[in-house]
């Protein structure tokens, strides 16, 4: 009996089911009309339509980025539908008005929308294809002044905040996918935490892609006023399909003076099958601005899904003494490809950043860490610590690292540690000798490898992440 690390079995993707409900799906294709249609569906003000159209015009002049270490056939943007929503007469105001099939879907995903059944202390915004179907605990959060709703609702209810902050971090023309998103974004979450408030609950958004041949263009905006604190978590899943589907999101975080935003992601989009057919293209721009002194933005991501991941949650450290953090676990099994990392842009004095990246490659997976640490000329006393570890399981997968460092201030302190290791046959054997199967041994060792990142996740989600990692590793040993 040997541990055959190369043998790759088909793992079961637990969330691959499809919900059969009546949906309103826009015809495929992208043009100004598409954008007008989306904007009118969402009853948006004129200025926002103009904003979208401007982004669209710019997008037409742009080319897809080619520098990422990923390969895929060209995407036909005219062959995608840009809007899909469950058919309901009106926007559901309470749980009872939601289609029972959708409620069942979320229950199956382990996210009951009934406030009584939910994890205590976690509020959920449930986004189903292009629309948010419900946001829970809104009233309770409102008591402390926290606004938590879908971005579409925020456009209607809090236009002044949207006008001020939309594109504040990621400009429309930032990059190809961000420009596309700015033109056609549909739903996502909006969070506003007023001055001095510590958000009393964990906030979370659960993104579900359901409809066929549609793209999902999430837009999320989180604003933390002076001295406030918020912890936010997003989860994502999609049905199993032979086609590739695009999820192109933009997430913007703004932390004012003394504010902290903790943003965690558990990304489990359908990864495609063993031959690399199907799966989500997860092309995402996530960025935060630490505008105020002593503010902090902390990104934690566990990326186990998607056929391709292209994602660099970043921090612009403008305020003096501000702190940026990036903790990442990215796992690629089968034919998955991930090109992910972060940018830490130090502008203010005594700013500090921490990067801990754990890449795991199994099967034929390709895993790339790409990171930039930039110390501006006025950023005296800036510090960065980067730790970048890769683990290989088997010998058909790949790990790559591209760390870029630009230092324009001589007082900067930079520390960089990197390692690449093959999962130890001796470690697996040691665990087997104690009674564990090879599969459990691998999962135990990989979870140990990721420990430093998991401990940054809110407790309930850390357990979830460990389980997810074990499931995603299934079939990586035979």
């Amino acid at each position: 009996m040997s541990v055959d690390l190369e043998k790759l079995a088909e793992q079961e993707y637990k969330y691959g089911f499809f919900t059969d409900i009546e949906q309103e799906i826009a015809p495929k294709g992208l043009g100004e009309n598409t954008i007008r249609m989306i904007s009118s569906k969402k009853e948006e003000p004129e200025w926002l339509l103009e904003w979208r159209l401007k982004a669209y015009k710019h997008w037409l002049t742009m080319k897809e980025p080619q520098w990422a270490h990923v390969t895929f056939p060209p995407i036909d943007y005219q062959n995608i539908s840009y809007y899909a929503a469950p058919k309901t007469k009106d926007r559901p105001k309470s749980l009872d008005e939601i289609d029972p099939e959708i409620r069942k879907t979320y229950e199956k995903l382990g996210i009951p929308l009934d406030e009584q059944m939910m994890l205590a202390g976690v509020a959920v915004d449930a986004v189903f294809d292009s629309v948010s179907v419900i946001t829970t605990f809104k009233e309770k959060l409102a008591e402390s002044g926290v606004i938590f709703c879908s971005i579409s609702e925020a456009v209607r209810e809090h236009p002044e905040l949207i006008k001020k902050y939309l594109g504040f971090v990621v400009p429309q023309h930032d990059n190809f996918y961000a420009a596309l998103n700015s033109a056609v974004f549909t739903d996502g979450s909006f969070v506003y935490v007023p001055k001095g408030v510590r958000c009393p609950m964990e906030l979370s958004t659960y993104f579900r892609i359901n409809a066929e041949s549609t793209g999902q263009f999430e837009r999320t905006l989180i604003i933390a006023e002076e001295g406030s604190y918020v912890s936010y978590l997003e989860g994502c899943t999609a049905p199993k399909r032979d086609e590739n589907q695009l999820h192109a999101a933009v997430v913007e975080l703004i932390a004012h003076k003394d504010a902290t935003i903790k943003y965690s992601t558990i990304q489990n989009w359908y990864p495609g099958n063993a031959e690399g057919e199907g799966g989500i293209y997860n092309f995402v721009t996530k960025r935060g601005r630490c505008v105020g002194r002593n503010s902090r933005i902390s990104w934690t991501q566990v990326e186990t899904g998607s056929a391709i991941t292209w994602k660099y949650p970043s921090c612009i450290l403008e305020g003096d003494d501000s702190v940026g953090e990036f903790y990442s676990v990215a796992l690629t099994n089968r034919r998955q490809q991930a090109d992910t990392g972060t940018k830490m842009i130090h502008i203010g004095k005594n700013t500090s950043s921490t990067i801990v990246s754990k890449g795991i490659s199994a099967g034929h997976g390709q895993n790339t860490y790409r990171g930039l640490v930039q110390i501006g000329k006025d950023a005296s006393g800036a510090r960065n610590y980067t730790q970048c570890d890769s683990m290989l399981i088997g010998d058909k997968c790949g790990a790559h690292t591209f760390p870029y460092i630009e230092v324009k201030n001589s007082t900067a302190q930079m520390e960089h540690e990197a390692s690449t290791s093959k999962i130890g046959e001796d470690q697996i054997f040691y665990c087997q000798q104690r009674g564990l199967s090879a599969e459990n041994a691998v999962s135990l060792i990989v979870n140990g490898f990721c420990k430093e990142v998991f401990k940054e996740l809110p407790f309930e989600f850390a357990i979830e992440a460990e389980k997810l990692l074990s499931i995603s590793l299934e079939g990586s040993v035979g």
Partner: protein
Amino acid sequence: MLEIRNLHVNVADQEILKGLNLKVNAGEVHSIMGPNGSGKSTLAQVLAGRASYEVTEGEIIFEGKDLLGLAPEERACEGIFMAFQYPVEIPGVANTYLLREALNSIRKYRGLEPLKHVEFAKLAKEKMGIMGMPDNLLKRSVNEGFSGGEKKKNEIFQMEILEPKLAILDETDSGLDIDALKVVADGVNALRNPERAFVVITHYQRLLDYIVPDFVHVLVDGRILKSGGKELAFELEDRGYGWVEEEAGKAVNN
């Protein structure tokens, strides 16, 4: 309990064990001594089921079962435990976590309910006490940053929790100070009973003062050249291994 017949083993296409025979009955303690590189650890690893050691000939019967047909974890679940000569480090995995998973995996194999957290914690605490190990070694990552002696003690600690039928100790005494040696020996002796057997690999007769063996075997160049009682260990300590080889050489030549 264990019977090894004419065992031939290749490592990296080189024959290391060249027709080894050994019989171990329940309740017995066998000591294996022999020069560096003679194949002692190879024997231990083959018993535990390491894939890179290729058995080219011979058979191993454990409790009536063909051991070579079992996966390493199945052997562990059947009651074989090996204390490694070089225990590996597993960063980020708490010592107690691995051990609880291991124990519950073995219990499951035997149709027993998993041990609850509190029950396990109690058991671990008790055994830690016996081994004179500080509590923090439980919470720390498996063997990571452990001193040489702590690693060896940790192996015996694991053995005490898992209560194997056959324990193979590969140079568990190397690197131990004299007090630790006694603790380890006490740990082994406490587990000695008529149902359990030990194979103790060592270079030093000193260990055998504490763990008194029923048999001593001399392994040279992949074969057991001589077997005897515990007095053989003294003779080896005095005279080295040369005479055993000479004696065996004469026997072959005659």
